[in-house]
């Protein structure tokens, strides 16, 4: 479970460039729930995810993982509970290391790196099994340098890596945005498999309204650092992409049309 209480984040506090990225987020995500997070650029989606992961310190407010106050924990300490996949396929893996070395790193997530060999034949079998799920032929390329793989392949491996260690929370930050439609669909497919299999609590940021409605069981929209609506259950099931767009226009309540929000794609 993730609970945010009155979460505020302000960048460059006290300076002329001060920016209030989050202004009081109250959000409770029960265990096993899959929430999609939408909003235009600068709404605070990525800031919210990065604050939950611990990369950004909150200026005010508290974060709990299943009733444990983690507000003061470092990002490293929170990796025991959190697995992440980034938007940039290059960010989630080390290009200089081989596929198996990258996977070994993820396998050791949350435990202190000891002085036993990072790789052994048992682990290689596990990695091969996992990679074969992708049907990309990567199971035969364990010793390839990660930098030689395509963006889609790297993102697929990042996704598998996030599931190598048991964690309760998975944070997906537009993890299909930089991929072609076919690879994006494949990645989304494997994400869903992993999420169901491991019963993870998931937050997925996306720019695609379609994706936001098609996946998970709850949709949250952020605008200017606040939750402006929160859809669950049967009400959500009846929603279409155009309803979301309307809702968004209403919530802004300033008479503006959506023409400046080309990034809210309807596909």
């Amino acid at each position, binding site marked *: 479970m993730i609970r945010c209480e009155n979460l505020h984040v302000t960048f460059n506090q006290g300076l002329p460039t001060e920016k209030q990225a989050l202004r009081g987020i109250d959000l409770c995500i029960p265990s096993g729930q899959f929430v999609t997070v939408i909003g235009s650029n600068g709404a605070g989606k990525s800031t919210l995810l990065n604050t939950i*992961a611990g*990369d950004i310190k909150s200026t005010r407010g508290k974060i709990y993982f299943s009733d444990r106050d983690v507000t003061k924990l470092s*990002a*490293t300490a929170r*990796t*025991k509970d959190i697995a*992440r996949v*980034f938007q940039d396929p*290059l*960010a*989630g*893996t*080390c*290009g*200089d*290391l*081989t596929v198996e*070395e990258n996977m*070994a*790193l*993820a396998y*050791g*997530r*949350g*435990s202190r*790196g*000891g*002085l*036993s*060999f*990072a*790789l052994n034949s048992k682990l290689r079998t596990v990695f091969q099994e996992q990679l074969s799920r992708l049907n990309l032929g990567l199971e035969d390329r364990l*010793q390839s*340098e990660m930098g030689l793989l395509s963006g889609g392949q790297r993102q697929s491996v990042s996704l598998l*890596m996030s599931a190598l260690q048991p964690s309760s929370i998975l944070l997906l930050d537009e993890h299909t945005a930089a991929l072609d439609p076919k690879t994006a669909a494949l990645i989304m497919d494997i994400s869903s498999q992993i999420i169901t299999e491991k019963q993870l609590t998931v937050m997925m940021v996306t720019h695609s309204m379609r994706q936001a409605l098609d996946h998970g069981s709850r949709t949250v929209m952020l605008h200017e650092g606040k939750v402006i609506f929160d859809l669950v259950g049967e009400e959500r099931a009846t929603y279409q992409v155009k309803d979301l767009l309307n809702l968004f226009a209403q919530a802004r309540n300033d008479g503006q049309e959506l023409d400046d929000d080309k990034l809210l794609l309807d596909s």
Partner: protein
Amino acid sequence: MSLFAFLGTLEIGFIFGLVAIGVYITFRILDFPDLTVDGSFTLGAAVTATLIVAGVNPYLATLAGTLAAACAGLVTAWLNLRFNILHLLASILTMTALYTINLRVMGKPNMALITEPTILTPFEGLGLANMYLKVGFVAICALLAGLLVAWFLNTQYGLAMRAVGSNKRMAQANGIVINEKVYVGLALSNALVGFAGALFAQTNGFADSTMGIGTIVVGLAAVIIGESLFASRSMLVIILSCIAGSLLYRIAVSMALNADFLGFHASDLNLITALLVALALVFPKLRNEWKAKRAQGETL
């Protein structure tokens, strides 16, 4: 080149093989260009020599010299991590400070060790001529250290350190404590360099406050030569190629200095170093271009 000169070349080659491994850890693994080594090489030699002259067991003295150099690495890491001083600048600061510290440690610019016992003394009665003994001893030291470092880099901890140098964000997302890895890496790198300084002082019979000047360039030359000749993904091969690169560098330098038709003097060493490093950098590029051209020719 006489046999005696050749053995001397190998001896220095193995000693700077240790430096090359240290430089590889900072430059290549941690992506932290560390010039501290110019000072920590001398520090290792100075501390060891001073303690030996004061009557301390040479093995303990060598250990102390190595640890002192490791501390110098920690200072550079601390300046960079705690105060955000650019890594290159932080290491230059430590290197500059070490020049004074080395003079203070020895109390004079130069210290002779010729008549003192060294770590080689216990082996001198074994009937091996001194010049073979020295080469053999430093070769074993360099190879053992190389094997240990290669093993370390293949452990979970070592792999985490490599991840820190490659992609900090990924490392952090996988629960790796970045700063700790940088501290350990810099301490390890400088310890190897300090150990090399301690060996140099004992095999050559002196410690001098200026002996460390140019250590970084020589170490880097060895790393680059090794990399361009033995491209590999295996840590063991990479580390051993650092030692091989150092040996080749020394052999090339002494051949250049000994070839009368080239007309080089001993004082031309720095020019030769620069030329060799440039050659090692250019060679792989030319080889690739040449290969590409030939492949093109075949398809036409």
